[in-house]
């Protein structure tokens, strides 16, 4: 089902398996899954619960390592990277948007965005400037000094997106980014991610159950029982 791609792959997953062991119980979350993700993809991972979407995102995001098989992210074979090297890869090259926003509650919106830049070693003045710039781009300039509990769910998720893109990552991974949002905010968030994808050529990979979210994707990969069931390039529906 995968159509030929002429863009270089950012991510190569080849025969990846992932087994979780809980006591005597072994759960195979991925079963020899293979997939390539290319620069410029706006890819939706869909599938029923337990199909392996989050596990695959964790692997692509260098948060975890496969039990067997190969996962290469931006040319790095994850099985050869230690914990610190994987942290550096995430910091420098990847952005994350979580279902529950996961902003640091004691920091303001701007500080949440700044945090990533500080970890990268960007000096205080430059990181503050960049954080405000990104927040302004996402329509959050007025809310820069508010803490997460002073923001709506939609605003928090936009701050989370700002945090994810502040360091100009090559790839942004979003796990069910609209699951906690109402339909209006979900639509606004997808439009925002789509704009960032088009204007800044950021590659997005997101897992979702929501057909309205899938409508924004240019590529839809369906997982069933830890394997790729279908991989379809599609025309994006009008925003």
């Amino acid at each position: 089902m995968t159509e030929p791609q002429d863009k270089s792959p950012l991510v190569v997953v080849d025969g990846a398996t992932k087994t979780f062991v809980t006591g005597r119980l072994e759960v195979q979350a991925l079963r020899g899954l293979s997939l390539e993700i290319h620069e410029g993809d706006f890819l939706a991972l869909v599938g029923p619960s337990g199909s392996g979407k989050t596990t695959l995102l964790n692997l692509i995001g260098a948060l975890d390592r496969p039990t067997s098989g190969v996962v290469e992210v931006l040319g790095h074979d994850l099985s050869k990277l230690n914990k610190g090297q994987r942290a550096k890869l995430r910091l420098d090259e990847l952005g994350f948007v979580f279902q529950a926003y996961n902003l640091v509650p004691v920091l303001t919106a701007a500080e949440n965005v700044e945090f990533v830049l500080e970890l990268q070693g960007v000096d205080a003045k430059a990181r503050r400037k960049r954080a405000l710039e990104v927040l302004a781009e996402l329509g959050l300039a007025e809310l820069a000094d508010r803490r997460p509990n002073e923001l709506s769910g939609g605003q928090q998720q936009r701050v989370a997106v700002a945090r994810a893109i502040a360091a100009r990552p090559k790839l942004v991974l979003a796990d069910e980014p609209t699951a906690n949002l109402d339909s209006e905010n979900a639509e606004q968030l997808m439009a925002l991610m789509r704009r960032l994808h088009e204007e800044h050529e950021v590659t997005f990979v997101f897992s979702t159950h929501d057909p309205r979210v899938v409508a924004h994707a240019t590529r839809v990969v369906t997982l069933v029982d830890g394997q790729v069931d279908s991989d379809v390039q599609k025309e994006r529906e009008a925003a």
Partner: protein
Amino acid sequence: MTGSVSSRYALRSLRRNLGRSLISTLGVGFGVGIGLLALSWMRGEHTMSINAAAGGGVGHLRVTPDGWDERRDDDLRLDDWEPLLERVRATEGVAVATPRNRVAGLLGLGTRSEHVDLTGVDPTTEPRALRYVRDVAHGRYLEPGERGAIVLGSKPARRLGAELGDELVVTALDEQGEMSSMLLVVVGIVETGSDDIDATIAHVALADVEQLSGRPGAGEITILADDVYALDALEARLRPLVPPGADLLTWLQVSPELRMGLEADGAFFDMAVVIILLVVLLGVTSAQLTGVLERRKEFAVLAAIGMRGVSLVKVVLVEGMVLGLTAAVSALAWAAPLSWKLNVDGVNLAALMNGEDDSGMAFGGLLIDPIFHPGFGAWMIPYAFLLALIATITASLYPAWFASRTDPAQALRVDR
């Protein structure tokens, strides 16, 4: 890290659970305060001991013949002691240097006799080195150049039934083992308030002991310093003056009873402080660990966005340091005023003296002031911060390590 987002995160995390942070601070503050009071007590005891030693004849430093420290043999004498005494007296920082020699003798009056250790002294300098003979209760002290006179403590005088003007016969063994004797007139009777101390006082002229023992010269030169806090420097200046065949001892070496007493008390206080700090430390570790566990999701997110384990460790350690700094302030806030009050008013140890009255407590042959003054001073500030920071940073190590081990994937998975 001041001003950085991560330090703001650490500080605000402490403020987020203000109750727990305050309890941790007060817990460490209490433990450190106890530690400060123990240190204050030990310093007071050290000062009391050094003062007792200084005024009780032990001196701050003492020149003795080689081997005296091991054998405690009062028959030993210093070679060429007079030029040495002059050199010592001329040394900067020496308040007084007084020579002594000793011989064991039997005092007799009528049908009564009493064994005493006769001490030969220089009457000019001895009262400056031994406060018990500054004020003689009955009669007077020895005069320079005076021979055939004795100043007795009240206990041997009482046992002999001696009064001022009585002539006592003293008998001793000389160097050859021959009996030698001499008549001594009682010119003074000393009452220190302690029978134990009074029993040690039987002062005669140096020359009388030389005659009785058949051993010429002094057996020791006892030295008092101008500044007790500069003893090390004075010791360093005096040591080159000490000739071969002689040794320079500190007051702790001269008085092993005091040293052992201080060491025993020090060990007790150290153990008490360690136990208290250990309890406090475990409490803070528990509180810090709870704080880390509560923020497991946050740490997982921070790890996911690329924060390395070492940075997470720093965050938890900064929290520990802030707790330590505030705990040090809280420790000083209650322990310093209490310590000051005890220092100024003193603590009356008379109740601990077992039959002694309020005028003094004998220990190791020394009269100790029953009003004890625990130490107090600016030294408490660095100690408070040092103890508090050691406690809180140590207490933060395990929680910090635990935080650094956060597996972002697992934490997020559990959270879902």
